[in-house]
């Protein structure tokens, strides 16, 4: 880790290792409805991170003894492909993946109207194929778009973003190099943007309350930006459907006119 000390985290122009400003997200691209067999799906690119999400349900929860007569179960499965990290990862889910699956599922449970679907399960499968810090936030962001794509009733989308600290500076959406800073703090955060309630919160690093508050509030701003990107991605899907529909209608009109002329 000696090398990381030589890195200039913020240069004289206020730019970060990858050229971003301190409060700048990496480029995010979200495409809903990318997998035909899933009931809802999404693809996300968030910087180098790439993930695919597929959603099924609500469907009967099996075996029967796992059913909850009061609500739907939210089964969130987060996995990283063996080749998605610098050293090959074991295909067996590790402790990190199990923990992330748990807290992310709980974050979405708050947003989904689970009480409307007793005895069922909503299965959300997320696979990462490339990674560079912030994968759980990218995964959760895409998962909430996939749930909307599946038409599952929700109170709001869930928007996620990490915030952190490197070399004494609070930064939005840290990349791997920044996560490895000697004074690094990493705080993945997810909110339901309409109410700003916090549905996922984790942190590691060592930080005092004042600095934490600054980081938290920057993180909220990041989540709100992510929210806009999610909404645009979903709207685009329906605009495309509408355009297709319009074309079809025009085509039918033409055909009809031809028939009338005859």
């Amino acid at each position, binding site marked *: 880790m000696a090398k990381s000390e030589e890195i200039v985290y913020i240069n004289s122009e206020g730019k970060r290792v990858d050229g971003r400003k301190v409060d700048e997200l990496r480029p995010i691209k979200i495409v809903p409805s990318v997998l035909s067999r899933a009931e809802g799906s999404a693809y996300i690119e968030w910087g180098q991170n790439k993930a695919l999400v597929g959603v099924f349900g609500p469907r009967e929860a099996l075996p029967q003894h796992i059913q909850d007569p009061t609500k739907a179960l939210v089964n969130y499965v987060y996995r990283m492909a063996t080749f998605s990290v610098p050293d090959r990862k074991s295909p067996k889910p590790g402790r990190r993946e199990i923990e992330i699956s748990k807290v992310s599922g709980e974050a979405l449970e708050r947003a989904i109207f689970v009480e409307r679907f007793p005895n069922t399960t909503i299965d959300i499968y997320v696979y990462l194929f490339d990674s560079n810090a912030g994968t759980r936030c990218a995964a959760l962001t895409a998962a909430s778009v996939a749930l909307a794509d599946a038409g599952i009733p929700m109170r709001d989308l869930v928007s996620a973003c990490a915030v952190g600290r490197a070399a004494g500076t609070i930064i939005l959406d840290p990349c791997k190099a920044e996560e490895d800073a000697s004074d690094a703090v990493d705080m993945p955060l997810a909110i339901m943007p309409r109410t700003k309630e916090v*549905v*996922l*919160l984790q942190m590691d690093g*060592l930080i005092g309350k004042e600095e934490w508050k600054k980081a938290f509030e920057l993180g909220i701003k990041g989540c709100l930006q992510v929210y806009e990107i999610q909404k645009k991605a979903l709207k685009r899907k329906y605009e495309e459907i509408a355009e297709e529909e319009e074309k079809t209608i025009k085509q039918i009109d033409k055909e009809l006119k031809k028939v009338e002329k005859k």
Partner: protein
Amino acid sequence: MRDDIIWELRSDKVRELIKSSQRLDGRALYEYRPIKIETDFSKNAHGSCRVVLGETDVIAGVKMDVAEPYPDTPDEGSITVGVEFMPMASPVFEPGPPDQNATELARVVDRCIRESKAIDFKKLCIEEGEKAWFVFIDIYVANDSGNLFDASSLAALGALLNTKIPKLEDDKIVKDEFVGKLEVAKRPLLTTFAKINGKLLLDPAIAEEKAMDARISIGTTEEKLMSALQKGGPGSFTQAEIEQCIDLAFEKSAELRKLLKVE
């Protein structure tokens, strides 16, 4: 996952009482259950501690072992935290590999200690790139009566504080001979709050955990720094609630630290 039915039946009562800031066991909102700490619980362990928090009962043991450092940190040892829910700790626990709850618990306790820098990993190095001490902290949950987070972190720290470093001869650990104590520079501890019906309360007992909407655990040190944060459960928190929990965590963890006597 059908749970302890008896506690679920009390959920309504818990949720009703909390409206007037009352708790099933008569505690104040920000009051811990009685805590008993017993150190040196296991003679074969290099350090150990049993914590009884109300009826919650956990035992942490430390074993030091020599191994090759990780390639990316050749001059450092490390710590590893494991959690095992003993099958008799609750009617819903089953033998087998750690489930989501045990995994989350182990990782949050790990982060709380690791990130506080209570243990200097560089000081665990014996020979760069060749060998270093690895500190294995294993936590056994004997009775789950709620708030395993705080009980486990207290037991883990208690065990670390009386951990002795074994003597090495030809790279082998010499049984029952020690060269000194493990240096623990900070006192990192978790403080956990439950949110029920919009109210926050400290140290949720099992009935309160069954009734809670969400949970937040905050790792703090005596220097008023945070080393870990973890929200759990299907509910949510507002910024104001999180800030209130942080302030309370600094205050309440100080009470726990007083209970940890160092010989």
